[in-house]
């Protein structure tokens, strides 16, 4: 099966391991992710902070190109790109004049047929039902699922998970054997767009997130966004300085955790590219784990 794919700039650069793990996981389930031809940057925070029309035109060009290519589902693993795609689609579909104007700006037409999938929706739609038979290593760890902002907010536009205490990632992680913990910073902001321009703010925001996860016994923090990853992982020395202690909890993309569970190698999943070493303790498979898993409640 072939699906549209928009990696976005981070996944082609600093966060290549996220892209690699998404593609490797898809392949394991016989899905080929085909990049939107000649895609461009979504404009991210910079564009919508400075100019609304630019912030809509840049994602709209990608949506129009995807449409032209005949895609319907397009997988957008970066939560920020996913947010810009969803917002653009929403605005253009609810405002005809604006759609006309943006079509004119980019000299292409977007009709509105693209269904943007974030990484959890992709897993949910194409992978989760088939994963159990493929699991070779249970992911027997206490995991803090960190959603951040853009995967769940604004709910009116995304209509994805609930904004307070979302559950979709937790459900996926339990499927592969994780003990997904209850914690307080699931949807707090990591500082994202200010990563380079206001580093102290980012150390504080990300520091609180990492600290709470560690305090509640998480062995790993699971993310689905390259910005969340780089702030929690690459900014760890600033975080540790802010917290006044050394926190060693590693940060994994959800696709890396799933990949590990279905037997893809750490190397292929890019664990070596992380700043915080991923030293997950080897655990013996236990039968009792099975029982615990089935007792877990599903989302409302």
């Amino acid at each position, binding site marked *: 099966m072939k699906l549209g794919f928009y990696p976005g700039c981070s996944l082609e650069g600093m966060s290549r391991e996220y892209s690699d793990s998404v593609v490797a996981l898809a392949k394991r389930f016989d899905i080929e992710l085909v990049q939107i031809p000649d895609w461009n940057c979504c404009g991210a925070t910079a564009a919508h902070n400075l100019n609304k029309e630019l912030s809509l035109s840049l994602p709209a060009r990608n949506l129009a190109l995807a449409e032209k290519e005949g895609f319907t589902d397009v997988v957008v693993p970066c939560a920020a790109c996913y947010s810009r795609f969803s917002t653009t689609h929403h605005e253009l579909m609810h405002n005809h004049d604006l759609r006309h104007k943006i079509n004119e700006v980019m000299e292409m037409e977007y009709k509105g047929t693209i269904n943007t999938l974030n990484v959890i929706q992709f897993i949910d739609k194409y992978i989760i039902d088939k994963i159990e038979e493929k699991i070779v290593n249970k992911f027997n760890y206490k995991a803090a699922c960190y959603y951040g902002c853009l995967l769940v*907010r604004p709910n009116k536009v995304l209509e994805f998970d609930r904004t307070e205490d979302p559950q979709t990632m937790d459900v996926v992680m339990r499927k592969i054997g994780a003990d997904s913990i209850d914690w307080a910073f699931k949807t707090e902001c990591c500082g994202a767009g200010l990563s380079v321009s206001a580093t102290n703010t980012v150390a504080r925001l990300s520091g609180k997130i990492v600290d709470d996860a560690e305090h509640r016994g998480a062995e790993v923090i699971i993310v689905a966004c390259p910005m969340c990853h780089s702030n929690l992982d690459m900014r760890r020395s600033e975080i540790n300085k802010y917290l006044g202690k050394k926190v060693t909890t590693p940060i994994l993309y959800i696709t890396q955790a799933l990949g590990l569970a279905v037997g893809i190698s750490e190397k292929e999943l890019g664990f070596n590219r992380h700043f915080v070493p991923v030293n997950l303790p080897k655990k013996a498979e236990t039968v009792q784990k099975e029982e615990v898993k089935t007792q877990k409640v599903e989302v409302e």
Partner: protein
Amino acid sequence: MSDNHNHIVDNSLAGKVKEHTGVLAARCYQCGKCSAGCPVSEDMDYPPSLIMRMLQTGDPKDEELVLRSKSIWYCLTCEMCIARCPMEVDIPPMMDYLRSESIKQNKANPASKNIISFHKAFLDSIKQTGRLYELGLTLDFKVRSMKLMQDMSIVPTMLAKNKLNFLPELIKNRRNIKQIFQKTIDKKEETK
């Protein structure tokens, strides 16, 4: 944005916000949930609920303070405020509008200099190549902000972990991207 109010021509800042974003500051009843949930309210000079109040007064002095505030630049658009607002006052698009207006009127707070430099360097990278060129962006930002030594300590690890691409990725139809810039952000004012 369900407002059944009659349309009145309104030249106040709140009126312009409504015109461009459809969001009505008047709906805010000052419960303060946005300020309580805002992750950066402690960095701001006026927390989000106070910004709403300053828009409500319609006093030009308040409006001036809003456009010159640090707050509008520290806002991360994390969308926590709208998620928790009982009146569904959609603050993030208002903040986007206030930022662009603040630049247009040359009133951007000096404390926002680095943030704006970063955004501009980011957009310049896209304008040239169609995609973000991270190394180019970093160097451009360093020059614009004169923070030459910032983050130098993580560079060796980034290189060792193959996190930096040395060459930019160029998309084919760069002319189309330049056109998009010319018809939007570069149309109204010079952004350099």
